[in-house]
């Protein structure tokens, strides 16, 4: 049997040492009538060589991003991944370890998480960050829960121009804890939210306002105003950010955000059909740390006074507080966080600025090109790497046509807002080239 060392002879010896005569004897505690009397109904096993063929065939049924040109974003992005990352994270010592419960032989993982916390805190300009969350969406939901816990309030307000999927997940997390979710609508002119539209007397009840910068539409909201407003009501400002954008956009810490979350999958992780990604979670104040969900690594010293790292503040966690834990996270996304850490270490400040800068410039280029070709940009607000294009088209049909030319078009917004039925969300990362964009515009222009 693959991967099982016990030989029949060894099994015999081991059973004998237990006074048993066959493997079935090991399972006497299981009521006979519950035992499965047949094999599981699964396909015949494939030897490794056949397995590789079978899996390659399955993989070949997917059109992957190296074989087409994609303008899809809407929560997952085709960013460039430096080749060296996969080599480092696949070292057995990282790959086949678990949560660093035994710190003395887990300094590799612990120190790498400490680096992750540091770099996320520095990128966001926050005071502390945790070891990772499942993804950006669940991180946002947990941030809302934490805000309620910190403020002792049971209502939260979320910007309606947040990623609609994230909003749904938020809703799922909140409604089951009987927390009320209020959404703050966006203007159909600008795509931006208007904080004044919130019912005025709600203010003092709100645990937080949740807002993303840039918004789902790529546009930039006036966070200063929103932050000022919620703070005037002693609620928290929770921001979701694209970490890449922070190479150029104002850091949440500069806006006075209390909690910052986001998805760091775009930092050095393959896109992998949307997962595994990795979420991050950072807070502005050490006082908030003890309410923070997830693992946290702290610095300490060993018996000889040498610096070392340990899991810390575990009193918050499910192992200790059980039903009063700050969250139930146990296994998180350590390896993806490691990839993000290596990415940030490779790119450094100049590199991150450059990635952000190229996203910005290429997005601007495509917008100019499209406008010049007679297309309409739906919202006028400044955008970062995504924008909404409007045309009197069935975008699903256009996308099918694009596919024939090796292009994957944008995300049709009719799926999220009937008001935007004639719109599509287009993402442009640093991986897109001028030639690709030019041909894309040429194709679209040809179909007008």
């Amino acid at each position, binding site marked *: 049997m693959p991967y099982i*060392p016990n030989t029949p002879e060894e099994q015999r010896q081991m059973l004998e040492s237990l006074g048993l005569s066959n493997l079935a004897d090991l399972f006497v505690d299981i009521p006979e009538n519950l035992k499965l009397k047949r094999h599981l109904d*699964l396909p015949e096993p494939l030897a490794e060589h056949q397995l590789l063929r079978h899996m390659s065939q399955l993989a070949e049924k997917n059109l992957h991003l190296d074989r087409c040109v994609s303008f899809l974003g809407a929560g997952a992005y085709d960013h460039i991944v430096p080749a060296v990352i996969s080599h480092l994270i696949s070292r057995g010592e990282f790959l086949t370890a678990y949560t660093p419960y035994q710190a003395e032989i887990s300094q590799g993982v612990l120190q790498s998480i400490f680096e992750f916390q540091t770099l996320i805190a520095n990128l966001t300009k926050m005071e502390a960050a945790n070891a990772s969350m499942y993804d950006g969406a669940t991180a946002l939901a947990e941030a809302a829960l934490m805000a309620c816990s910190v403020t002792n309030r049971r209502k939260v307000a979320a910007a309606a121009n947040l990623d609609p999927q994230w909003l749904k997940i938020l809703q799922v997390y909140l409604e089951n804890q009987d927390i009320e979710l209020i959404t703050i609508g966006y203007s159909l002119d600008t795509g931006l939210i208007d904080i004044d539209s919130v019912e005025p007397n709600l203010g003092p009840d709100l645990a937080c306002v949740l807002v993303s910068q840039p918004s789902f539409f790529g546009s930039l909201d006036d966070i200063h105003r929103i932050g000022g407003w919620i703070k005037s009501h002693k609620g928290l400002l929770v921001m979701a950010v694209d970490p890449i954008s922070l190479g150029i956009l104002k850091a949440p810490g500069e806006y006075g955000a209390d909690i910052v979350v986001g998805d760091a999958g775009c930092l050095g992780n393959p896109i992998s059909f949307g997962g595994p990604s990795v979420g991050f979670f950072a807070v502005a104040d050490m006082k908030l740390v003890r309410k923070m969900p997830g693992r946290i690594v702290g610095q*300490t010293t060993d018996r000889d006074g040498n610096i070392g790292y340990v899991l810390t503040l575990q009193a918050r966690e499910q192992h200790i507080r059980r039903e009063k834990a700050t969250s139930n996270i146990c296994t998180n996304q350590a390896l993806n966080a490691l990839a993000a850490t290596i990415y940030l270490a490779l790119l450094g400040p100049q*590199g991150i600025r450059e990635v952000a800068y190229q996203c910005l410039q290429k997005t601007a280029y495509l917008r100019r090109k499209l406008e010049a070709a007679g297309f309409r940009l739906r919202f006028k607000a400044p955008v970062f790497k995504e924008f909404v294009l409007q045309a009197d088209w069935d975008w699903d049909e256009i996308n099918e046509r694009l596919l024939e030319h090796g292009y994957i078009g944008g995300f049709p917004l009719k799926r999220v807002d009937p008001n935007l039925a004639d719109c599509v969300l287009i993402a442009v990362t640093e991986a897109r080239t001028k030639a690709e964009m030019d041909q894309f515009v040429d194709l679209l222009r040809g179909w007008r």
Partner: protein
Amino acid sequence: MLLLDLSVPGRRGYALPKLDVEAIPVADLIPESFLRESDLELPELTEPEVVRYFTQLSRKNHGVDVGFYPLGSCTMKYNPRVNEDIAALPGFSRIHPRQPESTVQGALQLMYELDCFLAEAAGLAKTSLQPAAGAHGELTGLLIIKAYHKFKGEAEQRREIIIPDSAHGTNPASAQMAGFIAREIPSDPRGGVDVEALKAAVGPQTAGLMLTNPNTLGLFDENIEKIAEIIHDAGGLLYYDGANANAILGIVRPGDSGFDIVHFNLHKTFSTPHGGGGPGSGPIVVSKELVDFLPDPIVEHTDGKYHLARPKHSIGPVKAFYGNFAVMVKAYAYIRHLGAAGLKAVSENAVLNANYVMNQLKNDYHLPYDRLCMHEFVLSGKWQKEQGVSTLDIAKRLLDYGVHAPTIYFPLIVEEAIMVEPTETESKATLDAFVAAMKSIAEEAKTDPDKLKAAPTKTPVKRLDETKAARNPVLKYKRP
């Protein structure tokens, strides 16, 4: 030395292709007030330095590839490398979750088939692959229980989830996150659910029961049918915490014992690597009655095509997109490689290895439940405690033997617990070496307790001060 200690202004470890479009001044694109003013304190290093830094870091870490890792309840089995190659195929690693379904039929087929495999292993109907880890699966399952009761109009009334005191900490924490009240019930002398206590606990307020079986003591609860009956009769549902399914593949199926919802940990039972703490994947499988409540989306197969669909009464999505797809790819490949007979052999040998080690150690360490175990067993360090040596000391001393320590101080119901899970991928020679190490530590506890208290000494750092870390938390780099 941390990354920022090594940083030198001006170094770069990666360069993008040159910008190939005309650049516009940033200020013309984005108003000043939106731009970052503060410094961007990230390290500046070249690729060779980054490689050496992380290579060195890794060398300070234990992993399954390095040595024995009998961490109870975590199933630290061998992670086949072929599955890493497979998950890295561009056809799997380079697809966007929002691509048209016609362009991702291979991915959807894989998910659909994995769904079927897991349903078959669970003896249940349909799977959601969305949860990111076991605890996330628990939350999802509990939300389904809630939705089910709500659908039946009983949500207000059924607010309690019954959880045995041997349960994993995530169970009560998940119950709390799902907005339930966790009600703890005691274990009986054989380590199973105290059936009388359970009877006393159920009532119209009961939403369900969360059970691990084999439980965290590594014991199979023989009364499971009785338990199921009690819960079902009270109108509740049974949730199976399947993190420990390594003992039961092809042997017994949770669905056949009356469970309504199961989560599996693909990163345990199905051999996907733990990655230093993730990513995992915690799919849940539900009975026919609950399929309509599954998270959005599930994968369906009609007219020879695979597509994503929203279950009728879906609780909604619990995670962005479809879950940890790359992890699913590895688990799928594992199942296809082993087949039914292989999976059964996994469980048989996992159980054999655990019993073998348990039996060898029971004269040296107190064994609170002296009966056949499943894939793991729990010792107690209480004899050693009497000699002034704690389970923590024993664990730390094991590190000096090149072995990762078992899970300690869990389950909570065993004093000074030492929870050992050898897994099926370990050889008898490795088990024998572990037994020998444990025996010599038991001897040292008698003859040289200070050695244990000073342990570890052969590790990259010596025993670390956890209290200091928590008292005055230093959570990020500060320039000296």
